[in-house]
């Protein structure tokens, strides 16, 4: 077996374990190096299996779709969200849907006015993060929402803290992309999507926290 024949045989006998291959490799440093390199590539490849983490956008989009398709069933199917808060949520009763609606409006505004926002931000400071301000205007910010969740279902608080942090990061990322590329329609859609996801997260948080 010569070098070319060894090379041809490697597609069929990948581990170069045949007697002919071994005989050639014993006397050929170049082919031994080739085989060692291929083995290194093979062994390193297994490390690529589950190394990357998807962004929070992926789960948020999945969760929204599952709810829209009614695959996730909220507790108390027939209850309306506003009515279900009832007296148990006291002050929060009207704030959550209002906050969610306002978040969507902020998203629409950010989507439509990102160019003018960029042009005027030197004279009018931007609200940062805009989502928090919007919800605060509605009477509830992230901290208050989390406090309500913690009061009702303490074991859910950490999960929603994490989700809120991620979606706020997503909003800031999307906003910075829009700021950098105000004419990018895809970036504006992402920003709108981010606000919608936060609105959905508020509704999910309240919905899932119900006893």
């Amino acid at each position: 077996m010569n070098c070319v024949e060894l090379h041809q045989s490697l597609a069929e006998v990948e581990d170069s374990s045949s007697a002919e291959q071994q005989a050639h490799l014993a006397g050929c440093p170049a082919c031994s190096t080739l085989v060692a390199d291929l083995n290194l590539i093979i062994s390193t490849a297994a490390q690529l299996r589950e190394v990357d983490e998807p962004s929070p956008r992926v789960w948020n989009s999945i969760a929204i779709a599952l709810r829209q398709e009614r695959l996730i069933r909220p507790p108390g199917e027939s209850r309306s969200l506003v009515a279900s808060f009832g007296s148990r949520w006291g002050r929060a009763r009207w704030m959550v849907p209002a906050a969610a609606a306002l978040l969507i409006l902020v998203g629409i505004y950010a989507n439509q006015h990102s160019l003018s926002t960029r042009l005027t931000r030197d004279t009018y400071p931007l609200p940062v993060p805009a989502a928090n301000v919007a919800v605060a205007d509605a009477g509830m910010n992230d901290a208050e929402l989390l406090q309500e969740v913690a009061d009702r279902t303490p074991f859910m608080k950490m999960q929603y803290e994490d989700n809120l942090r991620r979606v706020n990061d997503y909003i800031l990322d999307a906003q910075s992309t829009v700021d950098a590329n105000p004419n990018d329609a895809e970036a504006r859609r992402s920003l709108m999507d981010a606000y919608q996801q936060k609105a959905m997260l508020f509704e999910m948080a309240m919905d899932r926290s119900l006893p």
Partner: protein
Amino acid sequence: MTDRRQQTDDGLSEAEAIERAKQGDAEAFQALYDRHKRRVYSLCLRMTANTAEAEDLAQEAFLQLFRKIGTFRGESAFSTWLHRLSVNVVLMHLRKKSLPVVSLEETTQNTEEDSPKKDFGAEDLSLAGSIDRLQLQKAVESLPPGYRTIFVLHDVEGYEHNEIAGIVGCSIGNSKSQLHKARMKLRDILRIKRAEKAGKS
């Protein structure tokens, strides 16, 4: 597969999470997603070499899975079911983009390109001990899509050639040939990178 008995981060076994997801339990869906998201997303990212596409495809794979979860009876491992479904979602996407899932070069005859290279023949340019995961990841991204598909399915995901042949619709011999060529191309890419790096320093 033993992983069905392993617990998710929420303390649910996979079997419990599946049953609760069938009942529409939001936490169970998220537990299943958290458990498998890295594997599915990494597969999508390796095969597309594009972050946005990979996220869309991972989302699509999980949605398809969750829509069908009511039909899951446990005859096969959940992870096997999910990963095969994910592969199909990615391959369908590549086909829609008219990208070859297998290299158009069907021949198993060796070409000059496949012969042992002499240009970087010095033994001191051996890769041994000098590549890490990130280097290989970048090299895989630069492979032609057809080679990349076979390499990812076999060397990263662990599919056998007969399974790959069934998945992508090629012969077993073609799968072996494409895999070998993919590895040789990777070796060339990595050696060139190494030579460039050595030249700069």
